[in-house]
């Protein structure tokens, strides 16, 4: 039994994202009109042993706080599959 989860880490509002800006510019160069702001983030797919979803969620949040996100500049969201 395993739990599959997806953790999404994104820059907080107000934190400048030069990579997102460059991507935004490149999309315009490719002819995609009407593209507003682009913000770049990270996705982690994590497999966890066991079937206890609430424990998994608590563990994943702790992982985000301790390693996966830098909460000075980033927010995170945890989503458990199924």
């Amino acid at each position, binding site marked *: 039994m395993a739990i599959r989860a997806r953790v999404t880490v994104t820059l907080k509002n107000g*934190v*400048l994202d*030069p*990579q997102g800006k*460059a991507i935004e510019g490149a999309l315009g160069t490719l002819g995609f009109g009407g593209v507003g702001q682009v913000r770049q983030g990270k996705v982690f797919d994590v497999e966890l042993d066991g079937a206890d979803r609430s424990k998994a969620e608590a563990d994943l949040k702790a992982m985000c706080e*301790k*390693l*996966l996100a*830098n909460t*000075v*500049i980033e927010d995170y969201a945890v989503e458990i599959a199924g």
Partner: protein
Amino acid sequence: MKTAVVLLPGLNRDRDMIAALTTITGQRPHTVWQTETEIPDVDLIVIPGGFSYGDYLRCGAIGARMPVMQAVADKARQGVMVMGVCNGFQILLEAGLLPGALMRNATLKFVCREVKLEVANANTAFTRGYQAGQVIRCPVAHHDGNYFADEETLKRLEGEGQVVFRYAEGTNPNGSVNDIAGIVSHEGNVLGMMPHPENLVEAAHGGTDGRALFAGALGLAA
């Protein structure tokens, strides 16, 4: 004067740092590998620059969580002088020993050149060998040196004189907020900076502007 240099896989400025510390103190520093949990009694611990863990996840993020960093944190709490340069600065931030974060350079380009640094506070143990407002030469070499902190943190840093080095007007290479190049902890015994003072300590480097920083940290005449 005894010093220690922290070693992590992927750091590459350790040799330069060891050479600089040996030149200044006359003694080779201790080297402390990432898995060690104790650091010898020293006057200054330095985390050098490089690309620990290949900058994976975020610069310094994985290195900051290695066992040696707990030992560095304990020493810092005891008041031992701790200095992080470049990746070492990123590691100190990720370890929570200094506030804020270093992000990708605003230009998105790696910068490797000399900049001018203004000594924003000469009244710290690290910077006492300089005059306030003095402008010194120092090389930078980094991709993620764009210092960021929330407004409240910035206000505190500025208000309490924790900003010790700024990129002199017109030389900010990375977009750092308030031109911040180096900061100290509230207690003043932990310094993080992006530029490389270890590369300007002897005449053969083409200048010795970095020497006073190490001398200050060690309480030596420059």
